[in-house]
């Protein structure tokens, strides 16, 4: 064995970069979710270790302020990961039937965006993968459905009846 030391951040950054590369080049969406999900587990912990709020805590705090249920960070994080099928893609239980109903495109995008928020908290907005992915978002996503310009006052477009 030729062991070399790697920082935890490096492990997460490389996996996130690979996930984004696969995603923007039309590669396998399940692998994107798996890579971005794995990266995000590490990034989330690194943010907490720094004493900052990670992506899971931000909406949790907002929900509490709006009178939502008092959930732990772990339970809320699991809920978010379940919504994006991050856990289902990397685990299979004894009683699973071998099938998953999901929308890979949306989940892959969500998994990258979730990890990217934590990545930005740690590394800032000016890193190449952040700039590249934001440029891809502006060019490729529907501005009526997604906040492609990261406008804090943006709201989804609602079709009038």
């Amino acid at each position, binding site marked *: *064995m030729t062991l*070399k*030391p*790697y920082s*935890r951040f490096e*492990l997460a950054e490389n996996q996130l970069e690979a996930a984004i590369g696969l995603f923007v080049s039309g590669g396998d969406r399940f692998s994107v979710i798996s890579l971005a999900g*794995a990266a995000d*587990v*590490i990034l989330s912990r*690194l943010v907490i270790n720094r004493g900052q709020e990670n992506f899971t805590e931000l909406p949790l705090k907002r929900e509490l302020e709006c009178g939502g249920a008092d959930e732990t960070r772990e339970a809320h994080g699991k809920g978010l990961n379940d919504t994006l099928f991050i856990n289902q893609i990397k685990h299979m239980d004894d009683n699973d039937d071998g099938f998953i109903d999901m929308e890979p495109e949306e989940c892959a995008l969500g998994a990258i965006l979730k990890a990217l928020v934590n990545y930005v908290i740690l590394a800032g907005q000016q890193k190449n993968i952040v700039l590249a992915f934001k440029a891809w978002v502006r060019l490729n996503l529907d501005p009526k459905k997604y906040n492609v310009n990261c406008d804090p006052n943006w709201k989804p477009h609602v079709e009038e009846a």
Partner: protein
Amino acid sequence: MDYARRVHRELVGYTPKRKSYSHHIDKKLGVIALKHLSKDDPDTVELDLEKQAYDALSQAISDYISLNGQDEPFVKAFLSWAWKNTDGPALMEKFKTVPDKMKPK
């Protein structure tokens, strides 16, 4: 995994539990370090990326072949690469000396 547990039984004298042995192997392959981080884990981790990437792929391909055979192009490509780059003929000679009870069924 079950084959590895059987080899463990022959070498060490008992069959490890599937869950704990699976975790042990994932740790050996660097898989745990790549998808988990606990509060008290150190900031760095030592890995042999080339070897662990190859070993992790070998483990997954082995299970894939059990389920789906080895006719898919990506499987053939990996097996050909492994034969050429890990000295397949020498490995097969070594494998012939392994007792039958320690070979895959």
